[in-house]
Every structure is written in structure tokens, then in C-alpha cells.
């Protein structure tokens, strides 16, 4: 546990100094939200139905942007060797990176969401608990898949392109459930409907985490 915290702290510290990642993710996600706004005629009513989809597209693009960088420094600056030499299990590295990505994504989302509700005139405050839960479990799912695949993608020739290509098809179940759950919340449906989708996301998170747990050590072998 303390080993995880140590790696996590190292990464957080370097991020706090530069603030590169969080700021670029944030600006990017706001821009995506604004651009999506232009894809509808002004004053259109469709936007209410499409809002949860737009919200998730924004979050997904921003989190992919962030996760794509999570191993870049390690590989480019040769820190990976250092990490590998450290007397820790490979899986500790994975969990630390996963938590780091999750923290970044959650920070960005928690700032984007209120702005999003202003832009799209959505009420997020009455069901804030439910929204927070759905966002948390879905972001966890993205981070579980994304951390693993960013470790793969960073070693390919076309890093930035490869991560979304690997990530999207695998994470489609999470995306479907997240969009459904949030749109159920926005439309004021019963808690049982929302929980049905949320439960599925949790289940997917568990499955993906188990597979990632077993396969991560094969990715950073050399």
C-alpha cells in the first residue's frame, strides 16, 4: 500500500509542479463541450436529449488525452527502468498509475460538470449524489482499461493514435451504460433504473480490473 502511495506521490508531485496535464485536459474538455454545442441549431430542444451523450464524449476524449501521457515520461526519460528496478510488484506500478489517472480524470470532470450544466442548462444539483456515483464508476472503468492500454500504446510507433483505437472498442460497454445512466438521471427516472446501469458498470469494472491485473505484468516485461 505504501509502495503504491510512493509512486502515486511521485507522479502527483511532478504534476503539481508543472500542472501540464490537468490544465490541458481541462481546456480540451471545455472546448469539446463548446464545439458540440455548435453541432445543434441554436435553441434546439434536441440538446436536452443529447446532453448526456455529449457529456460523456467530452469526458472520454479528455481522459484519453490524459491517459495517453501517463507512461510517456517514464519511457522517454528512461524512468521506466528505474520503476522496474524498484523492489515492487509490477501490479503496484499499475495500481499507482491507475489511481493517478483516476485522480486526473476526476479533477477534470468535477470542474467541467458545473460548467457543462451552465452551458447546456441542465440540472445536476438535485441528483448530485447519483451523478457523482455514475461518473466515478465509469471513470474508474476508463482508467482501468486506459492505463493498461496506454502502457501498450506508448511502445507503438503511433502512440497518440493507437490509444483511442485500442481503447474505444473495448470500453464501449462502459460508454453505453454511462450514457444511459446519466440520461436516466437527467430525465428524472426512478433510482432502480439508474442503479441497474450503475451496477452493470461496476460489474464491468471488476471484470476489466481482473483481466488487467493478470495481464499487466506481461506488458512491462523487459
Amino acid at each position, binding site marked *: 500500500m505504501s509502495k503504491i502511495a510512493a509512486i502515486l506521490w511521485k507522479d502527483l508531485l511532478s504534476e503539481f509542479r508543472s500542472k501540464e496535464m490537468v490544465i490541458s485536459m481541462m481546456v480540451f474538455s471545455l472546448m469539446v463541450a463548446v464545439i458540440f454545442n455548435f453541432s445543434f441549431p441554436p435553441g434546439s430542444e434536441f440538446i436536452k436529449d443529447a446532453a448526456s451523450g455529449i457529456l460523456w464524449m467530452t469526458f472520454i476524449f479528455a481522459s484519453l488525452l490524459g491517459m495517453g501521457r501517463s507512461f510517456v515520461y517514464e519511457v522517454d526519460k528512461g524512468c521506466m527502468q528505474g520503476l522496474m528496478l524498484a523492489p515492487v510488484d509490477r501490479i503496484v506500478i499499475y495500481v499507482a498509475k491507475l489511481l493517478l489517472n483516476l485522480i486526473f480524470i476526476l479533477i477534470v470532470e468535477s470542474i467541467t460538470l458545473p460548467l457543462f450544466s451552465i452551458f447546456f442548462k441542465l440540472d445536476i444539483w438535485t441528483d448530485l449524489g447519483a451523478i457523482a456515483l455514475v461518473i466515478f464508476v465509469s471513470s474508474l472503468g476508463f482508467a482501468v*482499461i486506459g492505463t*493498461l*492500454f496506454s502502457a*501498450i500504446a506508448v*511502445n*507503438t*510507433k*503511433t502512440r497518440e493514435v*493507437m490509444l483511442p*483505437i*485500442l481503447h*474505444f*472498442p*473495448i470500453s*464501449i*460497454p462502459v460508454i*453505453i*451504460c454511462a450514457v*444511459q445512466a446519466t440520461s436516466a438521471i437527467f430525465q428524472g427516472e426512478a433510482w432502480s433504473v439508474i442503479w441497474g446501469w450503475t451496477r*452493470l458498470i461496476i460489474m*464491468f469494472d471488476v*471484470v*476489466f480490473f481482473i*483481466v488487467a491485473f493478470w*495481464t499487466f505484468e*506481461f*506488458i512491462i*516485461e*523487459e
Partner: protein
Amino acid sequence: MSLEKTKNPWVTLLGATLFIAMSVNLYLIFQFAPTERSMGHVQRIFYFHVPSAWVAFLAFGVVFVASILYLWKRDRKYNMVANSAAEIGVMFATLVLVTGPIWARPVWNTWWEWTPRLTLFLILWFIYIAYLMLRQFVDNEERSARFCAVFGIFGFVDVPIVYMSIRLWRDIHPSPVIAGGESSGMHPDIRVTFFFSLFVFTLLFIFMLIQRLRLEKSVVAVSDLKKEAALAA
């Protein structure tokens, strides 16, 4: 470094059997099988649409098993099997995606309908296209084998999950077009044709996999020899 220049008699036999079986299958599909009442002749697409889907699943299953075996045993040949099967699987998945709309257009009056099965195949196709791209974009052979094995495992585990989520998603927004079920009360002649077709396609898959594997072996042999020559020079 031995390369099979001499033909394996069993493979030749398999090829000959396949040729005969495919001709018989042609007869069964276009002559023997009765014309379906509500869909007409176009229903005959069923006899190669569904077996293509089956072969695609089979191929991806082979990728999954070979990937696990590779990570476990670290034998190059499992990697070759996975690569060959993935390529064949993508081809058959593409055929499913092409013949599906051709069937859907006259029957459902639309080229594309987001039915669970069609959607599943689209996503499956994306997963394995990504798999093949990953293989191309990693330089180191051993490394690409490991990455692809991991992704192959992930991709196959994802299949039931994707299907489940699409199913639920469709249930929430039911489609107005409800197509006649594919296997609802099959006529015995239809069933015979269908299962024979399934058998032929499975045989075809085995034959293609053997041939593709031979090619893969030659590719590896040539690249090994080149590396050796480069080292010697």
C-alpha cells in the same frame, strides 16, 4: 530451419474434400433448400451469412486461446497461430458486415439496423482491426507478440460484455423493425442445408488457417535468415 516445400498429403486431401463439399453446398443452397415463404430467395443469404459469423467467432476464440498459451508457454508458434486466426477472423467478420446489410435491405427495408447482433459484429470488427494494427505498429517481434496476446485476451473477454450491454440498450429503445427469427421453426431441409454449410465453412476455416500458418512460418523464416545474415556481415 526447415520449410515445408513438400506438400502434406493430409492438407491436399483436406483441400480436395473442401472443393467437393463446397460444390455440394452450392447445390444445397441454390437448389435443394426450399424458398422461404416471407423473405423469398434472399433468405438464402442465411446459409453463408450465419456460417461466416460462426467462423469469425471461432477464429477469435482461437486467437484468445493462442494468446493465453503464448503468455504461458512463450512459444512463438502460438503467436503465429493468433496472428493467422485474427486475420481470417477479421475477413469473415467483414463478410458478415457486408452480407448483413445486403440481407437487411430487401427484408427490413433498411441497409443498417442497430440490432444487437449486427452491432456486436461491428464492435468485434473494430476490436480485431485494432488488434491487427497493433501488430503492425510495434517493431520488436517479441514485444508485439506480448502486446497482441494481452489485447487478444481483452478483446475476447469483451465480447459477452459488449453483447450484454447492447442488448439492454436496445431493450430500452425497442426497434420498430422486428425481423423474423433466424432459427424459429426451421424446415428440415433448411436445417440440413444450414448445418452442412456450417460444416463446410468450418472446414474452410481450418484449411485457410493451415495455409495462412504456412505463410507465417515462411515470413518468420525469411526474416530470421535476414537477421542472421545481417549479424554475420
